């Protein structure tokens, strides 16, 4: 126990956070990356109001809202998985994890439908400033979802409590970031 405590303390201030210190570094870094991108989005929206008004009007509130709910529910499942695992209910934990993965996959399906619809209308990444940022931000986020699904699968297989905590922490981060992306890109329109 003492050795563990010492080991933990060696991360400095980060040791005071619940879970793996590296994952918190990652969470903070990702918040900064997406934060900068979203600030850039808002700034461009100010500089090119017409392009952004048209672009945002072309997005579907409800698909975005549905996806938000998918991710929230998925995050809840992931939290329940950790809870089950901490009581040594391994099978139950895997079921919850599977549920988290299902909702994550549903998110991706909706995303793909949305993108292909936009692309079929000729709105590709080079179309205008709005769509460049739209694809960059949602694409980079979706890449995290794909990565997150892979991580969920990995920690479902090697399912120590420690692994589960670290893996789901990544998943919650992906959720967290979407909760900021969604209102900024989909909902903050018409001003």
């Amino acid at each position, binding site marked *: 126990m003492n050795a563990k405590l010492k080991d933990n303390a060696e*991360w400095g201030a980060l040791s005071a956070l619940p879970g793996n210190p590296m994952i918190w*570094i990652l969470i903070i870094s990702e918040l900064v*990356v997406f934060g900068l*991108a979203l600030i*850039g989005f808002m700034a461009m929206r100010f500089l090119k109001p017409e392009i952004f008004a048209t672009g945002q009007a072309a997005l579907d509130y409800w698909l975005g809202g549905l996806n938000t709910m998918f991710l929230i529910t998925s995050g809840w499942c992931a939290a329940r998985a950790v809870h089950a695992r901490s009581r040594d209910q391994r099978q139950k934990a895997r079921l919850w994890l599977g549920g988290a993965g299902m909702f994550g996959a549903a998110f991706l399906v909706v995303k793909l439908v949305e993108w292909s619809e936009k692309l079929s209308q000729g709105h590709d*990444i*080079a179309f205008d400033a709005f769509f*460049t*940022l739209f694809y*960059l931000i949602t694409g980079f986020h979706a890449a995290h979802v794909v990565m997150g699904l892979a991580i969920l699968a990995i920690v479902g297989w090697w399912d120590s409590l420690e692994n589960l905590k670290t893996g789901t922490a990544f998943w919650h981060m992906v959720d967290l970031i979407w909760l900021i992306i969604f209102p900024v890109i989909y909902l903050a329109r018409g001003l």
Partner: protein
Amino acid sequence: MKYESQKVAMYYFAGALALFVAQVLFGVLMGTVVVVPNFLSELLPFNIMRMVHTNALIVWLLMGFFGCAYYLIPEEAERELHSTKLAIIQFWLFLFGAAAAVVGYLFRIHEGREFLEQPLWIKLAIVVVALMFLYNVSMTVLKGRKTAITSVLLLGLWGIAVFFLFSLYNPSNLVLDKMFWWWVVHLWVEGVWELVMASVLAFLMIKMTGVDREVVEKWLYLIIALTLFTGILGTGHHYYWIGTPGYWQWIGSIFSALEVFPFFAMVIFTFYMVWKGGRTHPNKAALLWSLGCSAFAFFGAGVWGFMHTLAPINYYTHGTQVTAAHGHLAFYGAYVMLNIAMFTYAMPNILKREPYNQVLNMWGFWITSGGVAFMTFALTFAGVVQTHLQRVMGMNFMEVQEQLGLFYWLRLGAGVAVLVGTILIVWSLAVPGSRQKAASQAGLAAAE
């Protein structure tokens, strides 16, 4: 030094130091041509000097990395090197290739992509040399103890070899050419070289501060994670104006703005370790170079890089003396100082010199660092003026250059100081110190 085979590092250290002097000498020559344009213009045109200057730098840094690896890996793997003989053959082959390239340059035998001017057969020889090296060190690590430091170092060295392969690809489409040219240049200096840098620094910290390996290795992973997470997509800052899609301006700006963080982490790491270690290592000079390395890399690569990395700013500063300022400070801080730190640490151990010219070495540190810093300031001012006159006012390139004469004279002066400092460093490492100097150095250390 615990293993006999670590001695092969001496070949590489010596070769690297010789090329270091040549590199700085050619730098001074170029600095002179800039202010006295007719100097040597018939005999040795600027473009030839430039390729000697940059190629000598790259080759001696790589040679230094090889030496660092040959010194570090047996000690980490806790066994002798797989083959000492192979390491010596590899050295002579590499030195021969480098010398042949330089002599060839003087006779106008070269190719024409920046930094990759080596003729094809020399590029292929470099690949062979790299394979010999990788085989040798990988076998040593595979048979011995595996540590985080050796795995990160190996990843960096393998990455150097893999990305060098892109130097063989030269399409007729200039846009594609440039895109993949950066796979060598950027993914080296802002990618895999940084892995080498972080792992060698981690090794030096373990050896000199006595802090637990566990702590150092966690820091190592943190630093290199930040490095590659920002650095890989940070390549985007080279894809702004070369014919690539506009979205790179966003990617490059955001990720390369964050490239400051790994360098900042390295500063915190080295200073914290030295502060925490509390053990007073006798090799003060090596400690000074290690701390200097992280600090100068932070300013050169981190701060000076950030200054012109955002696309709207880079739109004006791209390809001006601002870039030259950043390049000089970054290479010096990150890679020159890293190599000298390792040489300063390892050479007295290999040569079994208890007292050596530490004071002289530290003089070398301050004079060289002062020179490079002053050069950076001179070039930064030149770059800012150039940006304004040429990119905002639209003045003609040569007219603008004439306005910058004063800065170029200052830069030449700084360059001469760097040459003096370099000679001091080499002297201090090559020539044995006396007992008397050791005593005065102890006094100096106490006064500090």
